[in-house]
């Protein structure tokens, strides 16, 4: 049975690129255009991993991560932050919020797949 990944990013093209990379390896993909929209996808369905952007309108990535960690059903779902930001302070905030990995854009497909496979294994 294929694994499901939720991609959260306000950039449609970026969501498409991540989705294409994951779908090519047999992953099912869900998409959210920001943190607020992504929270509506957490409706009880099985999600194995979340890949989220940091800077987004309505609800940013760190707030979204904290909201996910409050959700009893999804608090153990591993989350990768995929962002252009590489500031160490923000990374520390992300780690404290419960992130499993921090990936700097632009990503390499094999790098993304390696990280995803490591975290959904």
């Amino acid at each position, binding site marked *: 049975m294929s694994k499901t990944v939720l991609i959260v990013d306000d950039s449609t*093209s970026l969501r*498409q*690129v991540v989705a294409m*990379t994951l779908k090519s390896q047999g992953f099912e993909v869900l998409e959210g255009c920001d943190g607020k929209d992504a929270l509506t996808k957490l409706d009880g369905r099985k999600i194995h991993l979340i890949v989220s952007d940091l800077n987004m309108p309505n609800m940013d990535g760190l707030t979204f991560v904290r909201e996910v960690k409050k959700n009893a059903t999804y608090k153990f779902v591993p989350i990768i932050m995929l962002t252009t930001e590489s*500031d160490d302070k923000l990374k520390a905030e992300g780690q404290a919020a419960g992130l499993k990995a921090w*990936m*700097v854009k*632009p990503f390499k*497909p094999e790098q993304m797949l390696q990280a995803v496979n490591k975290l959904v294994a």
Partner: protein
Amino acid sequence: MNNQAPTRTAAAWALPLGGLVLSLGLLGVSVAVPQTLVAGFFGVVAVALAFLTGKLTLSPSQAAQPAPADWAEPTAVVQAQDDSELRKVGSVWVPTLENQLNTANKQMEQGIVSLTEAFGDIHSKLNDIVKTATQAADVLGASGSGQGGLAGEVSHSLTGMLDAFKQSLHEKAEMFKEVKGFISSTDELKKMATSVEELAAKTNLLALNAAIEAARAGEEGRGFSIVADEVRKLSMLSAETGLKIRERVQDISSAARRAGDGAVRMEASDQHMLNHANTTVASVVTQFHAVTEPLETASQQIIHNTQVVSSSLNNAVVHFQFQDRVSQIVGHVCDSLEHLKSQTEEGLLGLDVQALMTDLEKNYTMAEERINHSSSHVTKVASKAAPASKASAHVEFFDTAPATAPAAKADEDITFF
């Protein structure tokens, strides 16, 4: 609000503001957009910024020369004119630039989304081709399972059929051996029947002699004469039976010899048929190989080439990530322009370039932006995005250890904490 230079003129603002504008222009120019139209927008914005820089920047010689007498105006009037022009910059020029940038940004995003969808569709179809070609290659013999594929299967089936045929011929040959053995037995039976006849003839002669001797003995030999007569009758019956046996065996022997002759002819025919079948099967298998091997090679070539194209396509699509980065840079430029607009509402005295730069820097998320910011006073542009192959700590993994746990690199691209 700037309150430290209340008597500054436009010329005094020119250099720092020119630096800011040049910085924004460089950010605009640094965007590597493949679409001519979008690049045109960014180009127009960059030229406009450069024009403003030129308008606002006085050369040292110009600044040093005293103004001609007929240019001399009261400072308050000059200040008022400068403020009026500056407000126009905020109310007319900056919104125009923002509109151009936003339009370029939207068009670029729409184009990239369409391209990504189209490439994704092509990528998906290529994957379907690879699956189909792989299945075909598996059937044709490229599965690597050691079964030899379809040609091997055909060869195996035909060889099995030949083996069954050979087995059948072998069993037939065994039966022919039995027939030959039977022919040999009938010869012995014939000899035995002849012996029976000879024994009967001798017994008959013996009984005849016995009857003569009994007659010579007179009344005492009468009983013996009856026995001798019965023995003679039995011997004659034995002779008849022996004759019948010999005739019957002769018939059987003749039939067996005919069967044996037929078997010999059949053996030769079977061997000829077997040789022909062997040759035919070998020829069919060779011809089948001649057809399937090129097909198998073609399938492998299709798989390889399609995978290469698919991989290249995938890598090409990944480069579309630049749109997200460009969009963010343009967004930050627009935010700063908005900030500049709000400052110009208060005239020259409201301008605070340091605040503009500080506010601009706060929004940065990318290394290129910071490089451009720090080098805004020189014409050096971070024109390239950080490459996707950049090795240093591109991915960092966090384990369950405390957030303050030090990082430990696992390899060039992935760092574990």
